């Protein structure tokens, strides 16, 4: 009979995994389950609920790291960091609402397992870049660790990179250590109104290629901008291109001026958002709140070279209809279209293949996700390596079998 196992210590977890290996059971590994709809649907014997492994274990603000148990809610971590004016600089997206779950309930283990990031990806990196080390139990039922608490560490293979983005298919973390950094004193956003997608890519590229240390660059076509809760954005009545700068006050002012100068010849109206409004807009962008993701819509996340963004976006719209918006200077495209049995995956993959990149079907009904490859297919030797890695870490297929690829 299917059970939900909820270990409360690392020892419990080890015993559960040893037992599952011996019983040849498979486990649906989850934190708070906010991203259960992300990935291929699985048929598992039992559920492994990690929300009992919760709490901040070590937080040393002056050493710029935190160690937390894998089931710790991100909200708890962010609250502790705020008290010391620090943050997870990679700005992990909260995909809960997009996936039909509650806001603010994800865990740190989930953030790392899905290698989440936010608009600051272009400047500060993703979860993979901030994930310093872990303790885990592999699908072999063996405890192992990798990395440490320091930023500079090349001792042995960097297994943190392997675990980040492996969707719980290789090992179950008991605790994770990640970098924390000072939160910026000030944040401001420069807006350009009415640019076409193509001109917006160029404008963002200019800003990102300038010395103004841009920490976010997004382009919202008119329909998406109109959904913003920030009145300057929703009231624009046209497309909005947004570029964010953060840092000490005088520096932020200086850089906003510089970006306005860079964009002076665009013939576009320029606006500025300050602290609250700026933060609100980037949270909407981060959490994909500006797409029409009504029930029945399917949502893709597409990563391409930034300057290819508008071209690929146009092709996607031509092939599947729906709507898009752009983050990461054009390098990240969010696409939502009406649901269909194949999620238009052939068209999506063809458009991405031409530009170079990858596409992930973030949201669709389980039966669609069971038929269509959710993650970018890994052909030939890449697929072979993937299977051999899985074989090495989880030979019996105990952990989230088939979550990413059939048979892995």
């Amino acid at each position, binding site marked *: 009979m299917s059970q939900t196992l909820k270990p409360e210590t690392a020892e419990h977890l080890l015993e559960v995994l040893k037992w599952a290996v011996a019983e040849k059971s498979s486990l649906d590994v989850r934190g708070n389950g906010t991203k259960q709809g992300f990935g291929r649907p699985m048929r598992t014997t039992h559920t492994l609920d990690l929300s009992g492994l919760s709490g901040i274990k070590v937080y040393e603000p002056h050493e710029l790291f935190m160690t937390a148990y894998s089931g710790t809610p991100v909200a708890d971590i962010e609250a502790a960091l705020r008290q010391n004016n620090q943050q997870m600089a990679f700005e992990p997206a909260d995909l809960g609402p997009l996936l039909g779950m509650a806001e603010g309930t994800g865990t740190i283990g989930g953030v790392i397992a899905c290698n989440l990031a936010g608009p600051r990806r272009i400047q500060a990196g993703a979860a993979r870049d901030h994930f310093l080390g872990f303790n885990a139990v592999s699908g072999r039922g063996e405890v192992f660790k990798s990395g440490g608490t320091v930023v500079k560490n090349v001792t042995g293979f*960097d297994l943190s990179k392997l675990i980040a983005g492996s969707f719980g298919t290789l090992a179950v973390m008991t605790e994770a250590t990640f970098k924390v950094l000072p939160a910026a004193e000030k944040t401001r956003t420069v807006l350009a109104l009415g640019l076409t997608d193509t001109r917006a890519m160029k404008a963002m590229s200019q800003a990102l290629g300038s*010395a103004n240390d841009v920490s976010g660059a997004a382009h919202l076509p008119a329909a998406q901008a109109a959904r913003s809760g920030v009145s300057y954005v929703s009231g624009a009545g046209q497309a909005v291109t947004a570029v964010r700068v953060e840092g000490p006050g005088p520096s932020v002012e200086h850089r906003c001026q510089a970006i306005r100068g860079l964009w002076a010849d665009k013939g576009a109206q320029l606006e500025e958002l300050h602290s609250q409004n700026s933060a609100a807009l980037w949270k909407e962008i981060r959490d994909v709140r500006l797409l029409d993701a009504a029930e029945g819509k399917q949502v893709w996340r597409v990563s391409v070279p930034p300057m290819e963004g508008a071209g690929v976006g146009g092709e996607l719209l031509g092939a599947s209809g729906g709507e898009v918006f752009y983050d990461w200077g054009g390098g990240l495209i969010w696409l939502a279209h009406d649901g269909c049995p194949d999620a238009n995956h052939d068209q999506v993959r063809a458009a991405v293949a031409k530009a170079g990149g990858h596409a992930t079907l973030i949201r669709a009904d389980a039966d669609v996700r069971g038929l269509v490859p959710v993650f970018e297919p890994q052909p030939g030797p890449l697929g072979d390596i993937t299977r051999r890695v899985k074989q090495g870490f989880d030979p019996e297929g105990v952990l989230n079998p088939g979550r990413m690829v059939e048979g892995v």
Partner: protein
Amino acid sequence: MQMPQPDADVIARRAEIIKAMQGIISGEGVIADTDELRAYDHDGLMAYKGLPLVVVLPETTEQVSDILKYCHDNNVKIVPRGAGTGLSGGALPLADAITLGLGKFKKILEIDFDNRTVITQPGVTNLALTQAVEHEGFYYAPDPSSQIACSIGGNVAENAGGVHCLKYGLTTNNVLGIEMVLMSGEVVRFGGKHLDSGGYDLLGVANGSEGLLGVITEVTVRILRKPETARALLVGFPSNESAGDCVAAIISAGIIPGGMEMMDKPAIHATEDFVHAGYPLDVQALLIVELDGPEAEVEHLIERVDGIANQTGATYLKISQSDAEREVFWSGRKNAFPAVGRISPDYLCMDGTIPRHRLADVLKRVEELSQKYNLRVANVFHAGDGNLHPLILFDANQPGELENAENFGADILRYCVEVGGVLTGEHGVGIEKRDLMGEMFTEDDMNHQQRLKCAFDPAGLLNPGKVYPTLHRCAELGRMYVHHGKLPFPDIPRF
């Protein structure tokens, strides 16, 4: 240092192997003459030497693929080699292995300012990469001190660092894609000009894999726009403790400097004698703190760091007034290794990383060990990210002194691990720290790492004898020991 026993069968087949290599690479790309092989008998870890079976210098990915496929089919080992500047012996040749040099992969293939990327062959030097884009005001951020000579392929293999890591990341955070030839001869691509991966992050694990997973034949990096301005403070302290306090206070104030370097008294004196950077000689510790960014930001932060330095007991403080003066501040630190080389016939450079707040404690232990082993030591320290480089001075011509110095170094690294740090921050494990891996990792930790190796190179032909003290066969690592039984913790909550 025990290396794996050379395979006599492979050595006996040397002539046949050379002929096969000449069939793949024509002309001077196959080096078999003993005198010429000597140029490849060591890397930056000079204490260890050995002649390779043969050296091959391919020029194309296809040739690399053919070489690896031949070696795979004929059970011949491969030692990949970039510029040979690595400090941990990762490119140390093996008597029964082909050393595969990437020195002829010297072209920059594409510069794309709009996407802020460069695609390059792996033999291009780190500095050449920056030089290729600086006319447009761009640069490649990771800057190991060997940047004039070290190659970008080697940087990826070692996940090289530099003085700007705290703010701009290591190699792994700045590489977007690679082309790699697997031991089977198959050519794969991880990443590209886009971000992140649609599957497992194999690009991430290739970074810092020390030539054990594949041979890198192309690299895509991100480039950054040079900051508008940079200024540095040179700050002297009466003790290592107060310098350490200053570092901690700067970080605690929410400031992430572009670079933050520290030297102890012996290092200050050695470098000052060598380059005359104008360092104060009456201080115990010296910090260089560089702030970069827009003029307004740098001004603002310089003032704040100035205040913090005074509060933490600085006895000497100078702020650079020009780029030239800033370069002078750096000249001593950047020449620390050769400066120490001048005052001692030989030196060993250690590379542990420690939690920043344990610095004074670790330096005290280094001093005690210096007395115990009766060897001098000078310390330079990437204070921002906790990466410590004690330089152990010795004379290899004195019998037993190399061994003594190595034992001293090993004791330092053990202490780094004991205080919560790691064995190597940026130089790699190679052979140098191989036998210390057990100080940091359990058998199971290392076995899981080696299972990754097995996914790439099941026959274990790539760079054997490096990084891991015990070589397990992949079949043995794959075996499962399953204990059947009931769930022994009946109290685990279940629903």
